């Protein structure tokens, strides 16, 4: 056990799974190279350094650099998965997946169903997401609700280094297509991560904090904001539960509903745009299945229904923060009292 960054945790999972199973390959733009590779390649290892060192350890046949051709290499990875490999494709920004929707939605997500369970598609698609890096509208979106909408895809949003390694390991060993989304601002966060391989099952929420007053459900980086808000609220005497569902598909409804029934006051924090987002989805599940337990309206803290702005002040205003989360939790807590 040692302290590792979110980036190191992902890199370690890739190294260990590639060593464990020769069918695991990685494919994407600029992913080759890294420490130990010769010449110019040494500079790469992925746009965010997550695949560093894989080329040296596993060679060019299993670490495939591609041209700027997302539709081609995502399609190639889906095909490779259907025919026996376990590809991990890397897309620099989730925003670019628009050009490969058919490969993902209509092919990878459908094979198991349309071939009567006889086909498996052990395909992992890693991509970064999220605002806060001054990367403007086309490199900052939080598009996980779009993938969550499609039956046949599993969608993973790790919020900590421990979760990142265990969930990526599970994603690679899983026989279904997995969309694995990494918030750019989390890469340098650190935490305790076991050195050996381990898996975290999908559909198992993490309860980071238990309190009896308000339930805060948050996704990805928003989990940290929720914890900041909960710690501030604790000083005011408002005791919050903070739940990180870890995966949006499958979704751990039981944990969410159980806590909602206990507190009766719910805040959902989602970096995605509000229409048809995770906050809307989880809110509808709670309203439908735990209505009788609610003591206050379900509060949603999300981005507004706009593209991500480039201007720093506007981008800051766009993103949910701990102040907004705390205000929503306070409103839920005092409602009806």
């Amino acid at each position, binding site marked *: 056990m040692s302290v590792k960054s979110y980036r190191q945790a992902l890199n370690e999972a890739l190294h260990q799974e590639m060593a464990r199973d020769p069918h695991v390959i990685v494919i994407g733009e600029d992913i080759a190279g890294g420490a130990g590779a010769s010449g110019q390649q040494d500079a790469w290892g992925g746009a965010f350094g997550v695949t560093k060192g894989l080329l040296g350890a596993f060679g060019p046949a299993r670490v495939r650099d591609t041209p700027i051709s997302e539709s081609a290499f995502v399609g190639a990875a889906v095909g490779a998965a259907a025919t026996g490999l376990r590809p991990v494709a890397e897309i620099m920004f989730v925003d670019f997946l628009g050009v490969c929707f058919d490969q993902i939605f209509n092919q990878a997500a459908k094979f198991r169903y349309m071939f009567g369970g006889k086909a498996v598609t052990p395909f992992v698609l890693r991509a970064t997401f999220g605002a806060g890096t001054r990367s403007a509208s086309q490199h900052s979106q939080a598009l996980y609700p779009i993938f969550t909408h499609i039956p046949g895809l599993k969608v993973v949003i790790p919020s900590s280094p421990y979760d990142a390694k265990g969930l990526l390991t599970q994603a690679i060993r899983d026989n279904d297509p997995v969309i694995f989304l990494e918030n750019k601002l989390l890469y340098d966060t650190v935490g305790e991560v*076991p050195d*050996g391989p381990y898996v975290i099952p999908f559909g198992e929420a993490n309860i980071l904090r238990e309190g009896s007053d308000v339930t805060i459900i948050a996704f990805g980086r928003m989990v940290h904001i929720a914890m900041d808000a909960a710690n501030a609220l604790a000083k005011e005497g408002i005791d919050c539960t903070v739940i990180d569902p870890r995966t949006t598909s499958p979704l751990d409804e*039981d944990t969410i509903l159980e806590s909602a029934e206990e507190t009766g006051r719910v805040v959902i924090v989602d970096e995605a745009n509000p229409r048809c987002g995770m906050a809307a989805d989880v809110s509808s599940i709670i309203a439908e299945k735990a209505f009788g337990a609610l003591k206050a309206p379900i509060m949603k803290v999300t981005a507004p229904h706009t593209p991500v702005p480039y201007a720093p002040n506007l981008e800051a205003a766009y993103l949910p923060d701990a102040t907004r989360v705390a205000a929503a939790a306070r409103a839920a807590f005092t409602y009806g009292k």
Partner: protein
Amino acid sequence: MADTIQPITMPKWGMTMTEGRLASWLVQEGQQISQGQEFVEVETEKITNVVESLVSGNIRKIIVPEGATAPVGALLAVVAEPTVPDSEIEQFINSYADRAGKSDDETEGQAAPRVVAAGPHSLNILSIGDGDGQPAILVHGFGGDIGTWLFTQDALAQNRKVHIVDLPAHGGSAPSLEKGSVEELAAALLMAMDALSVEKAHLVGHSMGGAVALSLAQSAPGRVASLALIAPAGIGPEISSEYIEGFLNADRRKPMKDVLARLFASSEAMSAGMVENVLRFKRLDGVPEALGAIAANIAEQGKQKIDLKPALEGAGVPALVIWGEQDAVIPSSQATGLPAGVQVEIISNAGHMPMMEASSTVNRLLSSHLASADAK
């Protein structure tokens, strides 16, 4: 003594504890307390622990309210005789913050567990304490780890070296077992003693760790100074298959919480952190298989497959057996009919984990057992 002001501070159990949540006060301001009286409950990463007072006097002022979290060493309350004026109490509280800062330096230098090579095994071992007493080795049970002894270790380390061991395939020790038998675990423990240059030690074992201690006493009698067995496996027929099977099968929080609740007489005391720690351990590659192999060696359909009663009869060293009366994993009725000379203590308000649920009582029993065994 009469006019001294005594601080009551947030205790520290184990290395990783930096703060604790004050679950409840069992006394009120103005109330008289005596040394040894249970007076406050503190929530930790394992369970909510009832704390006994180290001092006697009047609770003059409670500083940290119920439900609040305070760092280790923080002033929780002040005890003094009623004759001490309020102004002096206030002055004491105000000046305490400066003094409290100093204790942080001590905790930073605290020992951390390290991995010790012991034959084919790499064992995670925490060594603390020092003194004239013979060293003690603490051995956890099935699925446990060094955290089992969170509330025990410091009390035993007052006048001796205490080695707290993660058995193979547990905690921070690698799953290096071939068969997963109790004999193999005992052999690993003996190799750990060699690696630590411990010629002879008191063995303190919980549940399966008790069976491991007995097995070691049987195979290497000269190396054991005394035996302290807490709800040990190996000396009676029954064992809960619901617990063992449930533990092996649970890979999610909710089923694991239900399984672990069986360990305690009062499961509300269990914290979410305990469940999460066990799950993290069970998720590691190789661990579920190793645990399955160990379980298959210990029990089958509610019956134990190991019989170490002869080892207890033939040990020839001071032996103490502690059992929680409400133990739902291995029934406390097995504590009856043990060989003459074995000290048996039944603790009424505890289940399978008396060293957590009744830590003060168990610490007193263990300390006096070790002291009298040292004297022999």
